[in-house]
């Protein structure tokens, strides 16, 4: 799936996005290894979503460069789109379509054949235990299931990298834990996971974590290393120490 044998799924150097005089993302640089679960943390307004949109090819960077799945984000956004999956809490699925129709729509959009779609649908039903919900409208499915379904749909075409924008917003801890089991499963199959989250306990599940403050990356390391560096017992404390000096607050 990935074009070259680079050890990195994502490399970013000096990535910047300005809206007029406002610098949303300010010269960020980082690498994400193949198969890694990379946590992208930051307060609201820190620039997480803007950075993620640039990586997905939804928005053009003002300056800086980046490679995603072996393709240049400035010149080859169309190639990137074929190799990534994308899911967010808010933008999950078409509420007016049934679960089955959503699966079929997005699988078709990603160029899957009918027989592949049939196999993938069976597999999703079996794994998520939701065969009986296939012909239910998405708006009538409980949010926990909806998010697992959205995740399954966003990875249906087996992308090399999946971007998750606050995928677990608004669900209870049990559901969140189940959702992370799904993340571990795709990661164990070699998929790279790039995830933003508000829940600091979830940051503990990541291989490495970056914390964005005011458009810059203020800290980047594994959760254990960060806890040692800031003398903190939990990621929550780490985050509060790092984000203490934030000036943007929305």
């Amino acid at each position, binding site marked *: 799936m990935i074009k070259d044998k680079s050890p990195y799924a994502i490399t970013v150097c000096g990535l910047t996005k300005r809206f007029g005089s406002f610098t949303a993302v300010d010269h960020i640089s980082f690498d994400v290894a193949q198969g890694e679960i990379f946590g992208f943390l930051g307060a609201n307004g820190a620039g997480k979503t803007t950075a993620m949109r640039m990586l*997905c*090819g*939804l928005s053009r960077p003002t300056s800086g460069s980046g490679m995603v799945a072996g393709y240049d984000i400035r010149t080859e956004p*169309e190639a990137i*789109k*074929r190799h*990534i999956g*994308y899911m*967010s809490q*808010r*933008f999950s*699925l*078409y*509420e*007016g*379509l049934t679960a089955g*129709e959503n699966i*079929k*729509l*997005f699988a*078709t*959009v*990603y*160029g899957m054949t009918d027989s592949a779609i049939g196999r993938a649908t069976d597999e999703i039903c079996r794994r998520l235990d939701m065969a009986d919900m296939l012909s239910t409208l998405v708006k009538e499915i409980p949010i926990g299931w909806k998010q697992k379904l959205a995740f399954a749909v966003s990875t249906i075409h087996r992308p090399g990298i999946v*971007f998750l924008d606050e995928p677990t917003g608004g669900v209870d801890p049990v559901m969140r834990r189940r959702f992370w089991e799904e993340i571990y499963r795709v990661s164990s199959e070699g998929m790279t996971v790039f995830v933003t989250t508000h829940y600091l306990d979830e940051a503990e599940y990541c291989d490495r974590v970056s914390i964005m403050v005011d458009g810059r990356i203020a800290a980047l390391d594994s959760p254990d290393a960060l806890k040692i560096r800031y003398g903190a017992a939990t990621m929550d404390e780490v985050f509060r120490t790092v984000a203490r000096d934030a000036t943007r607050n929305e």
Partner: protein
Amino acid sequence: MTILRSLIRKEALHIVRDRRTMVITLVMPVVLLLLFGFAISTEVNNVRTVVVVDRHNDQTRDIIECLQVNEYFSFVGLVADSDVERLLRDGDAEAALYLRTDVGLTSAHIVVDASNPTSAQAAAAYLQGLTEGDAKKIAVTYTLYNPQMKSAYNFVPGIMGMIFILICAIMTSVSIVSEKENGTMDLLLVSPVKPTTIIIGKLVPYFLLSCIILAIMLLMAYTVLGLPVSYTVMTVAALSLLYIILSLSIGLLVSALVSDQVSALIVSAVLFMLPVIMLSGMIFPIDNMPAALQWISCAIPARWYISAMRKLMIQRLEFSHVIREFAILGAMTAALLALALGKFRSNP
């Protein structure tokens, strides 16, 4: 192609599953046509008229006879001069005709109740026609193309001009903007689907819906409302399809300019619906407008559509008489479509 087909299917499912909107969309054109065709009428019939005559002679008798047989008037009777004001005030009469004979010459004075200016104007005009010059030579007016002066004929093109803006522009812009609001547009944009495919997938279902409505309205116009069927029907359909595409482009442009459903609705309604109703000649004749408004009306697509439709449906003129309207609408469509697609590509 399979991608486009699945996108069209998705949109069609959304339209069909939204029962309420679906019913409104299909029933509204029918109701509007019936309402304007039968209930709302600018024709004036049975104007209750009293006549005041100071001295009877052949001329006055002729005029009264004409009044009695004319279906536009109902002759209330001969009254005294002093009663006229009371009759008009009480609503027992709507018009009074004074016939005075002076040295063998009969002159007519007309008094009308103008609390409804439209019917007053019409009544005055009828009466004038009746009494013009020598009553023996009552002016003969031929009304071409619409001999019974049915206002239904006049309204059909106007209603169609309005409905397509309503369905194409408003529904399309609201549905595209709602995808932006819900974020499902982002899901499609991060996928390998080209923005143009997304847009076509969005427009085709509304185009098909509009075609169904066009068929319903033409069928009604030519049957229930009794517009004369002629070989111009094909040109009417072609012109309407062009106008539908133009309205879809307006919807697309609006959706590229605004970011929430309420603004989409307001912009489509205020910027496009109101001018269609007020300035397109649908209700108020363009020739009666101040020069400035006449100029503005040139920029309103519905004006050209309605004018061409009247020529085709009522006057039954050949295609060569509406080439100008076709060309203007075609140019407007091309410009709007280019603008909207450009906007969407640069800022989806």
